């Protein structure tokens, strides 16, 4: 209603009202998807309201992005109208009063409601709701529902899957040798990966780990070659993201923020399922490159090693897939295919749960009504079907189901099929402000286990104890 009122008053003042000059300044990480957004906005965006609206993105290096945004917000600088935020940061900045609750605005805008309905539930859960509402409940409510608080929209959704060397996995000699020892076929085509379990993954690791001098697909190796690898690093969240997948796939899980305060930590975080899952995760590191022992094997290290042709298969983010098929940066660009991440047989069928990645973008709370409207028009423009399609074709990703189900979607990037099939399995880390402390401590304990200083159980017990005490202090646990 308010919007129509505004529109009428504008008419009364008469058309002589000068088109106001509004600058929407957004803090964003400095990489492909945000550079595309700026370019595309400059080229194609013109504000439906007739105002002269420009989107001005302040590109900040990703490793220091949090420090800059955090300092800016906490100092009350009120510099940015919109901010690209990691999904886990939502709780912290919402409770600090920096991010704008959008329910009223969505209430009034059919387009925004349509968008909310079209967004994949997993992304609405991870990127927008706070307090966190799990994806299945959102699916049950169907589209927009005032019972939930909405904050963010997807700027770049992300999830991880398998990159593999199709020249090795489809080599007859290797396949014959593999069948002889493991009695199973090597998955050559991407579809073949839909039935791969972690046991198969271990066999690939064992089979393809070769010392310099041995032959691989008929070629003598000059350097050591390794079978498998996934993220196992101390910095940022480089082990939690993968280990959470194991927890969920083994029926375990992390502290459930959505039914605070009676979700338990002890007995959940260090449950037998979690311990078994974590032990499997650790055992699979034996076939990874030696950097795994240093606890520094992050998403970029396995990407580098893979692109230099030193690993048969790795599990990494869609955001990092581009350079792997680009000959100017990867020595294995034309022999790389993508498959789904292996899963675990849980209660009969293959569970492929994984931890959601990517970033939503949000509005800040200190803008006047007109700026908020202009920002929301920008959101509508960004999440419109043709903009999203252009984004995906430029190497980005979309969270809109209409785009994902577009028949040509899989053809726009070799890994789009895998991204699309992985999306329903996505679940996210906690969003509460205490996330930072829990993550840092958890990463440190995981790192001790990865570097062999302590056992999986000891690590999980230490984590459970710490989180239990922390959440009780924070009043999120009775």
């Amino acid at each position, binding site marked *: 209603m308010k919007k129509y009122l505004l529109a009428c008053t504008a008419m009364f003042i008469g058309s002589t009202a000068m088109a106001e000059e509004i600058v929407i300044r957004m803090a964003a990480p400095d990489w492909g998807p945000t550079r595309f957004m700026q370019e595309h906005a400059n080229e194609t965006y013109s504000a439906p309201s007739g105002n002269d609206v420009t989107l001005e993105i302040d590109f900040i*290096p990703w490793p*220091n992005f949090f420090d800059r945004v955090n300092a800016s917000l906490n100092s009350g600088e009120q510099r940015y109208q919109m901010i690209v935020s990691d999904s886990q940061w939502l709780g912290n900045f919402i409770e600090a009063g920096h991010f704008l609750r959008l329910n009223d605005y969505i209430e009034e805008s059919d387009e925004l409601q349509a968008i909310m309905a079209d967004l994949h539930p997993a992304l609405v859960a991870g990127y927008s709701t706070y307090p966190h509402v799990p994806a299945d409940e959102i699916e049950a409510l169907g589209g927009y529902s005032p019972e939930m608080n909405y904050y963010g929209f997807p700027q770049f959704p992300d999830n991880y899957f398998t990159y593999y060397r199709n020249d090795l996995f489809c080599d007859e000699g290797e396949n014959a040798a593999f069948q002889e020892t493991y009695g199973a076929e090597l998955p050559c085509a991407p579809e073949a990966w839909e039935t791969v379990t972690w046991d198969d993954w271990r066999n690939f690791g064992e089979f393809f780990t070769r010392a310099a001098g041995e032959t691989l697909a008929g070629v003598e190796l000059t350097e050591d070659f390794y079978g498998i690898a996934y993220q196992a690093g101390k910095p940022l969240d480089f082990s939690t993201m993968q280990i959470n997948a194991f927890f969920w796939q083994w029926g375990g899980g992390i502290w459930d923020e959505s039914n605070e305060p009676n979700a338990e930590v002890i007995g959940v975080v260090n449950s037998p399922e979690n311990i078994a899952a974590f032990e499997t995760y650790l055992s699979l590191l034996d076939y990874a490159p030696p950097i795994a022992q240093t606890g520094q094997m992050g998403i*970029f290290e396995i*990407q580098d090693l893979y692109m230099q042709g030193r690993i048969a298969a790795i599990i990494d983010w869609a955001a990092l897939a*581009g350079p792997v098929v680009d000959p100017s940066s*990867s020595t294995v660009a034309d022999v790389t295919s993508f498959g789904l991440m292996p899963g675990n047989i849980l209660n009969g069928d293959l569970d492929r749960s994984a931890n959601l990645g990517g970033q939503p973008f949000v509005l800040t709370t200190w803008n006047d009504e007109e700026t908020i409207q202009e920002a929301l028009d920008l959101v509508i423009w960004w999440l419109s079907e043709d903009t999203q399609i252009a984004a995906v074709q430029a190497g980005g990703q979309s969270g809109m189901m209409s785009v994902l189900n577009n028949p040509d979607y899989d053809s726009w990037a070799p890994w789009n099929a895998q991204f699309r099939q992985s999306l329903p399995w996505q679940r996210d880390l906690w969003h509460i402000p205490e996330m930072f402390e829990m993550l840092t401590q958890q990463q440190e304990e995981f790192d001790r286990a990865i570097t062999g200083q302590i056992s999986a159980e000891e690590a999980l017990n230490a984590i459970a104890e710490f989180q239990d005490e922390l959440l009780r202090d924070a009043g999120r646990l009775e």
Partner: protein
Amino acid sequence: MTFRKHNEGGWGQTLVSGAIGLIYFAPVFWMVLTAFKTRQDALAIPPKLFFTPTLENFRAVFFDTTSSGELVATDAWLYFVNSAFIAGASVLLALILGTLAAYAFSRYPLRGNDTYLFIILTTRMLPPIVVIIPIFLLFRLTGLSGTYIGIILLYTSFNLPFSIWMMKSFFDDLDREVEDSARMDGSSDWAVFRRIVLPQVAAGLAATMVFALILTWNEFIFALLLTGTESRTVPVALASTVGGSVGVEWGKLSAMITLFLIPVVIVTFVLQNQLLRGVTFGTIRR
């Protein structure tokens, strides 16, 4: 027939120093080499000393290719200009203020001279991370955030402790007799300072300038937080080559490092003869 004077070494000395110098320089040499490599060559094992060089990385520093393929200039040249201006201004300011203060601490000691000096030193002892929020608020209240003056004043205050301590140790070492005799010939305090004292501490001035420049030129965290998009410096741009869709854009990073190294190398090379020129021209030592 002849022998070498005690402070002259021949080519033998060059060999020894050369070998050690090259070992020490090797990592930097590798970084500069990487600037001319494609990514595959950069990470190749065994390491590639001989490869087909490419200038692609230097182009990537100054030009981006948009999705439609045409080249659009990046702000890199602006960052270099900012770095030069901010570092230059703050080093000079720190040198002037520092040297004057050091001369006062040495020749006109105040009551509690040492406590002042120690307090000046303590400003360097805190990890910068912790003072970010207060400095941020201070800059916002005074409207300095995102401005050149703000960051220059901040860097000046970072350089002052070293400049003051360094120059004071040189002033203390000087022989007062020469100054007194000049004063007796009737030259004013200012003339004594400018004509007698300063030339004798040229080595100190050079060392202080080199170190202050290096400290300011490479400063990152405050540049990241306090400079706006227009006054941003190169170290912040350097960090943008990390954490994108590929872990580290090794070529572009090395190219920026190489380009960013050149001004400091030139300044140090120019200051070198001040640095290495002894101060012994006949003054009677202690």
